[in-house]
């Protein structure tokens, strides 16, 4: 069977599975809709968290980014996993004990202020929307490459699927589809990685293959360093970014991960505090499987690409080059007309341009794996994009129905709230789809900044809210506003107002816009602390509540009221 038939079959089967699960797990109450009734097992929640977390960007683009940035790519590997340590140790157990449904819920109650709640809602919506638009675009790209339909048709098909199971099933439906999606995506990621590792290094475990030897007996990484330096690039294992910038970006990504509302909310769905801790551990195990494989895929990919294309005659290139040239993800241009492809660091003379997404998407073709593996990668990429989109849509709909409507209309019936939640989810899907079809030029840029914003807004006030009884609403609001405004201003200035200034010489302390969230976070902490010092302490009942969330006993089911 050819690639496209396999792809239709595998993608079709996986979609049928998701829809089947959605029907089976229909949500009947707001509690089921928001937090799956609070009865998800830690293992299932760990898997769902992993799928929720690993987006189209993790699945499709991350390995490719590392391929072309080598050691510098480590910021993503450490940043997007280290955040789970913070989440497990500093946030998850306490928020679970707190026992409501959303992050703004916590901020609003802990800082006894609807103003604080609204600021938190705005942060949550902003972060989630920028993030979800990128996912829908990812769905569209996968459809257009593998199923040979138009990108826009792809986005609309993806919208319908997500609409179906998130509106119908809420968190309950999303959780169990995410479990299935995790299995699909990890299988799809590992199969080609294992094959390629075998072919290149003779070791079936990619994590070990990365440190293994290639055919001529030299270590893969040493060989890569040598080849790349010969072509005029920096060595693979050494960095180009400044140390301060590496530090700042890693910190912003870690803290941002721990502050992302769609990740935090997953820990409200387990029955007990100790389940929340354990579940964060499982989540990181499931994430680590992909994240420790990615650097191997990255190194194998760039090695293979150089090995099979560079210095080869233009008319004798392998078949996959032709396939991917149609999508413009790979461009070969014989500039000097010698009939040979030169791959060089010098942009003027370079004749081979490879898009980062190739490293994962074309991986099975480069390694000449059977056609079904290609179809598998397509369904895996789709699973990664859909699961993240669904998690984000839920945050958006919950923010609207619960944090906005419920706050200002406390007498509303549960049935009505559930209806509003569903309508909001539907509206959010349509809006996300619109952005997927008409991506504002800045979407790809902004997704990376969602982390900086989460780091600068949520993380400090949640941490201080748990670990200090003295921080009050004035402190929290000024902290969140300062952190958010500062980070946004820095990003907007360098990315949109004066992009020509965006280089290390003009950055403050050599910190790029990607890493500035960590400075925003520090400002938030300081503002929180200083303002709280000079304003009245929180009321006694709030201080008692803080004492209460610090001990696990009595978490019970998620509180519904």
């Amino acid at each position, binding site marked *: 069977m050819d690639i496209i038939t396999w792809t239709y079959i595998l993608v079709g089967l996986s979609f049928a599975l998701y829809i089947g699960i959605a029907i089976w797990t229909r949500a009947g109450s707001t509690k089921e809709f928001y937090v799956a009734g609070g009865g998800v097992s830690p293992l299932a929640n760990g898997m769902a968290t992993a799928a929720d977390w690993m987006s189209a960007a993790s699945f499709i683009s991350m390995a490719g980014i590392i391929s072309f940035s080598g050691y510098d790519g480590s910021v993503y590997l450490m940043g997007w996993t280290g955040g789970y340590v913070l989440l*497990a140790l500093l946030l998850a157990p306490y928020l679970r004990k707190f026992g409501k449904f959303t992050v703004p819920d916590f901020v609003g109650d802990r800082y006894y202020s609807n103003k604080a709640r609204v600021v938190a809602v705005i942060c949550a919506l902003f972060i989630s929307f920028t993030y979800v638009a990128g996912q829908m675009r990812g769905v569209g790209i996968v459809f257009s490459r593998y199923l040979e339909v138009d990108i826009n048709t792809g986005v609309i098909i993806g919208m319908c699927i997500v609409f179906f199971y998130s509106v119908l099933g809420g968190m309950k439906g999303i959780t169990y589809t995410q479990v299935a999606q995790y299995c699909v995506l990890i299988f799809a990621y590992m199969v080609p990685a294992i094959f390629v590792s075998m072919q290149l290094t003779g070791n079936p475990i990619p994590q070990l293959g990365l440190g293994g030897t290639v055919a001529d007996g030299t270590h893969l990484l*040493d060989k890569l360093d040598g080849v790349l330096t010969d072509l005029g690039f920096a060595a693979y294992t050494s960095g180009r970014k400044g140390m301060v910038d590496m530090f700042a970006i890693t910190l912003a990504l870690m803290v941002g991960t721990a502050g992302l509302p769609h990740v935090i909310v997953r820990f409200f769905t387990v029955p007990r505090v*100790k389940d929340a801790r354990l579940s964060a551990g499982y989540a990181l195990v499931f994430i680590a499987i992909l994240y420790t494989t990615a650097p191997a895929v990255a190194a194998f990919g760039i090695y293979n690409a150089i090995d099979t294309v560079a210095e080869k005659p233009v008319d004798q290139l392998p078949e996959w080059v032709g396939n991917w040239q149609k999508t413009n993800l790979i461009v070969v241009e014989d500039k000097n007309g010698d009939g040979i492809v030169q791959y060089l660091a010098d942009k003027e003379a370079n004749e081979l341009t490879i898009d980062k997404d190739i490293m994962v998407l074309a991986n099975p073709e480069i390694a000449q794996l059977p056609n079904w593996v290609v179809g598998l990668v397509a369904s895996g990429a789709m699973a990664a994009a859909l699961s993240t989109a669904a998690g984000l849509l839920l945050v958006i709909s919950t923010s609207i129905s619960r944090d906005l409507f419920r706050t200002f209309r406390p007498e509303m019936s549960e049935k009505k709230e559930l209806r509003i939640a569903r309508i909001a989810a539907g509206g959010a899907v349509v809006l996300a789809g619109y952005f997927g079809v008409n991506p504002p030029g800045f979407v790809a840029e902004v997704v990376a900044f969602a982390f900086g914003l989460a780091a600068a807004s949520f993380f400090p006030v949640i941490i201080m809210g748990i670990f200090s009884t003295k921080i009050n609403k004035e402190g929290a609001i000024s902290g969140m506003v300062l952190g958010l405004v500062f980070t946004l201003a820095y990003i907007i200035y360098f990315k949109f107002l004066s992009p020509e200034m965006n280089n290390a010489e003009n950055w403050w302390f050599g910190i790029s816009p990607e890493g500035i969230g960590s400075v925003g976070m520090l400002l938030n902490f300081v503002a929180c602390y200083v303002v709280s010092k000079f304003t009245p302490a929180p009321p006694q009942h709030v201080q008692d509540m803080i004492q209460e969330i610090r001990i*696990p006993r009595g978490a019970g089911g998620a509180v519904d009221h």
Partner: protein
Amino acid sequence: MADNKQKMKAYWKKNLMTLLFLLLIWFTVSFGFGILLVEQLNNFKIGGFKLGFWFAQQGSIYVFVILIFVYVYRMNKLDKEFDVNEE
């Protein structure tokens, strides 16, 4: 009641010590070995990896996983010891 308050204080203090200890390791393997000391560690090799590079792209992630499970184990024990555990 006063007794209980003392007990909770002691529980919280032990909790904070645990966090501090684990976060110190968290910082050391990622920011320490993976970024600040990467050049120095790259002088050593394990298998085909330069050590600093290995920590940045592999080792730190393994340590993160271990840290969370140590935390889970330690806190479950602490909860029982102070009788604040769930059923």
